[in-house]
């Protein structure tokens, strides 16, 4: 997994744990969290495959641009691997 990642800009319906405000945004992997049953399946009692989960850190500048209160403040969120697009440095 590349250190820099972009959250995929998908808009699927259903029980999705990647918040819309992070989609299309670029961050860095803060730490891997292990593998967990995919909640997008679990929520519907479907057979849920195990997926790697990561903590991704974004700067407030990346999320909110000029509207950021303090650009260097950060936001961390847990994002499943299938929502992450690895980026070249």
């Amino acid at each position, binding site marked *: 997994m590349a250190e820099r990642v972009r959250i995929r800009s998908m808009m699927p319906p259903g029980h999705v*744990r*990647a*918040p819309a*405000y992070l989609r299309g945004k670029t961050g860095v992997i803060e730490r891997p*969290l292990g593998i*967990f049953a995919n*909640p997008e399946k679990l929520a519907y009692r479907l057979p849920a495959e195990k997926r790697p*989960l990561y*903590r991704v850190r974004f700067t407030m500048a990346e*999320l*909110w641009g000029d*509207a950021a*209160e*303090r650009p*260097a*403040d*950060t*936001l*961390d*969120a*847990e*994002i*499943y691997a299938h929502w992450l697009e690895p980026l070249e440095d």
Partner: protein
Amino acid sequence: MPHDHPEHHHEGMSPSGHPYRADDDTALSYWQAMEIAVRELLIEKGETSAEAVQRQIDAMDSRSPANGAAVIARAWADPAFKARLLDNAGDASREMGFDIGPMHLIAVENTPAVHNVIVCTLCSCYPRNLLGLPPDWYKSRAYRSRTVREPRAVLSEFGLDLPDDVTLRVHDSTADMRYIVLPAQPPGTDGWPEDRLAALVTRDSMIGTGLPKAPA
């Protein structure tokens, strides 16, 4: 007299001058009816009992921020425990005897250079096993949306003005982790026993919307 408002009509008011809360004479919602139906079926079929349901409610109600405060106090008093807490907060809490179930817990440490605050934008994820039920504001759309967009303004409304040289880290509990803030130990409390330290740890200081109390 604080409640003497001669310009107001006091009809429908309590003797102390406050309006009575309206009775909840509304129909059950779809989900309320569903919950009652499923619960009654489970009891009828012998899968559970009313007593077991009540026991579970009692267990949920008995958890309080005092559990989290005990964990924080030990981390302040015992550097080896603090290292274990930051490495795996779930295991460190279990080591103290807290039943935190399968919860995956991450402790995030406040330092002179970094302040942490917890939010769940998607719903109301909260470390209930250690802190009890979340406060109502934690579940409000205002807190959930504003804490990622303008967290410093939100903290300021809680009475916490962060200096500009402190980095703020917001943690959105989006999936399987739960978070607890390890606040900085108040100055002047070195060597205090854990129970005295725990009395300084507030619920909000473990969410990050406040700081521990200063020693009296």
